[in-house]
């Protein structure tokens, strides 16, 4: 086999060790700066480990203890103990429970726990427009709508909300340029495209999408260096390997992106010494870009990785178990 430079291979062991080290870095600034993302961070780390085929690299019991310590009486999750509940944390909480196959653990600790979480989420739907707020303070965003359908479908509780109304709302977020935004008329953004397509896929309504036009908008996101950006004239960034590629996967148009060039861009974003991936080559790594880079590589069929579900950003084996398909 020809010798490939290190940065052109996926440094699996280093990434595993990087993720394992995250919770031991309490003396670093970054740890405190990201406290509002603690639960999301666990979901990102655990998902990355599963895709890297090191599912057991984090201790299950400690993980679950932490997840349950973030659960409020209301059924919502906060980012960390003592933090307010919000949709974005609740989705991560549910995704963690699903990945750890822990819905029974939930019922054992909190009677009727699944229903409670489902009701928290359902209570955030706006009955007029079908969209969702993030919490009691009322901010609305397609990220929250997607999160609601994601978590409810994983728990088998979609019937708690008005899915048709939610679908209508997402449809109203389609822009003339082909993309989708946070609300009707809002700027198109690859991240928002992912949330809107994800919601429509869960609802089985991809027929509402102008797939050619959106696919063309997404394919314009690839830059000469192989990386993808989120919007016109933004810099390339590893996390868009996920938002754009998962959208392309849902549209069945992965081949509209040059996969070889993107693979090599993602691999260049690795920290060859300490592991982890950064937004672009040479920058500081973080767990967010680590999971989305690896998930992007999984969509690109990089060898040695588990299959990722483009709708949920979770191992396909997990979503198959939860959804029964």
């Amino acid at each position: 086999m020809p010798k490939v430079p290190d940065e052109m291979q996926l440094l699996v062991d280093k990434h595993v060790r990087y993720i394992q080290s995250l919770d031991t870095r309490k003396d670093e600034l970054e740890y405190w700066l990201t406290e509002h993302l603690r639960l999301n961070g666990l979901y990102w780390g655990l998902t990355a480990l599963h895709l890297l085929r090191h599912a057991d690299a984090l201790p299950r019991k400690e993980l679950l203890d932490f997840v349950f310590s973030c659960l409020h009486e209301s059924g919502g999750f906060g980012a960390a103990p003592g933090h307010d509940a919000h949709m974005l944390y609740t989705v991560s909480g549910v995704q963690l429970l699903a990945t750890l196959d822990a819905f029974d653990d939930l019922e054992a600790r909190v009677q009727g726990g699944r229903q409670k979480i489902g009701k928290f989420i359902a209570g955030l739907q706006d009955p007029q427009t079908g969209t969702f707020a993030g919490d009691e303070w009322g901010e609305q965003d397609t990220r929250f709508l997607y999160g609601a359908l994601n978590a409810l479908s994983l728990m088998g509780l979609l019937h708690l909300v008005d899915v048709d109304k939610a679908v209508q709302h997402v449809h109203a977020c389609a822009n003339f340029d082909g993309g989708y935004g946070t609300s009707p008329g809002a700027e198109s953004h690859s991240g928002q495209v992912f949330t809107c397509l994800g919601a429509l896929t869960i609802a089985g309504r991809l027929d509402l999408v102008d797939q050619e036009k959106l696919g063309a908008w997404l394919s314009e996101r690839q830059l000469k260096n192989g990386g993808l950006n989120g919007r016109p004239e933004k810099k390339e960034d590893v996390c868009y390997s996920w938002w754009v590629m998962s959208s392309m996967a849902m549209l069945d148009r992965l081949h509209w992106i040059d996969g070889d060039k993107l693979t090599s861009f993602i691999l260049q974003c690795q920290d060859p010494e300490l592991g982890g991936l950064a937004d672009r080559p040479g920058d500081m790594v973080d767990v967010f870009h680590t999971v989305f880079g690896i998930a992007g590589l999984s969509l690109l069929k990089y060898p040695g990785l588990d299959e990722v579900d483009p709708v949920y950003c979770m191992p396909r084996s997990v979503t198959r178990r939860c959804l029964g398909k």
Partner: protein
Amino acid sequence: MVSAGPGRAKLQLLSYETLSQYFQAHEDEVVEIEILPPAIEPLGGILMQDGLNLGVPKKTLALAYVEARHRFFEGMHDSKLASSALQATKVMLLFDPEHLTAANFRKGWLGALEAEFKSYNPAVYHKALRQELCFLNSILTSPLHRQSKSPTLWYHRLWLLDLLASVELEKASEDQKATFWRAELTAVCKSGEQHPKNYYAWQYARRLMPKIVSPETNDEFARHVKDWCCRHPSDISGWSFLLSLLPRLHPVSKRQGLVRDILSYAINLRLEHESLWVFIRTILAQETLLGGRTEFDETLQNYNDDLGNAKKASAVSERVPRTLNWINTYREAIAVPKN
């Protein structure tokens, strides 16, 4: 950072108190805050103050945050410590603008003030709302990279604005209303300069629009944003906001005038910015918005021909034919004759 020790604890307290006192002293003013790189050390090691300009070394801010966080979680559920917790949230949000729990705590406090004071001592309540807006302006429009694009803080501002509008706009004259909205657009533009392509700042601007009823203010916004975009032609968020303003302009000739200006600007300066051309293709393909087929197609076609005749290929000479191609593919033709 958390390696304990008496020296560090003292420094932590000092950092927090100095920063917190600065906020207290300037709670009626908009200040400009900058995080200093490690190479710049203020005399005395805490802050660099020059009137309304504040330089905070990253290390000071981090130390102050640890103290603020401690006071916040200690006081958030204890009414005796609530004011200390409230004060701490300012430092927390300066360090971590996505600290949802800290932002919510401030909302809860303002909500309680409303219930307590709105009817019998409205000045107290009103003053608190104005001070909150100063605080938000200071963080959202300072050269702080993460803070100026924070979805949490922009939503906090939108929430606050509804309270403020209900106090200030009910009996306001048209001029006062125009001034009120203009100040919001100014903050968005400034924040858009601190953080280019600032998605959440411009989304905030979009969410203001349904609250604005005056056609004059709509026109003023469109003019102002058009000029702003021409000064920042790579800013897709600005262009996208401008596009969303077009349907608010009446009659249709106003929209045509605006598009005509932008097209000649692009052509005269031979600009190739992708964002500008995305704006052009998106509006030209929507005949329904422009009141029917316009002369713009021909203008663009002629420009393309000129570029084709030029000997040297350039970025523009690729951009224009692709723009024409997109328009022809996705044109949404007007179904009824214009009248």
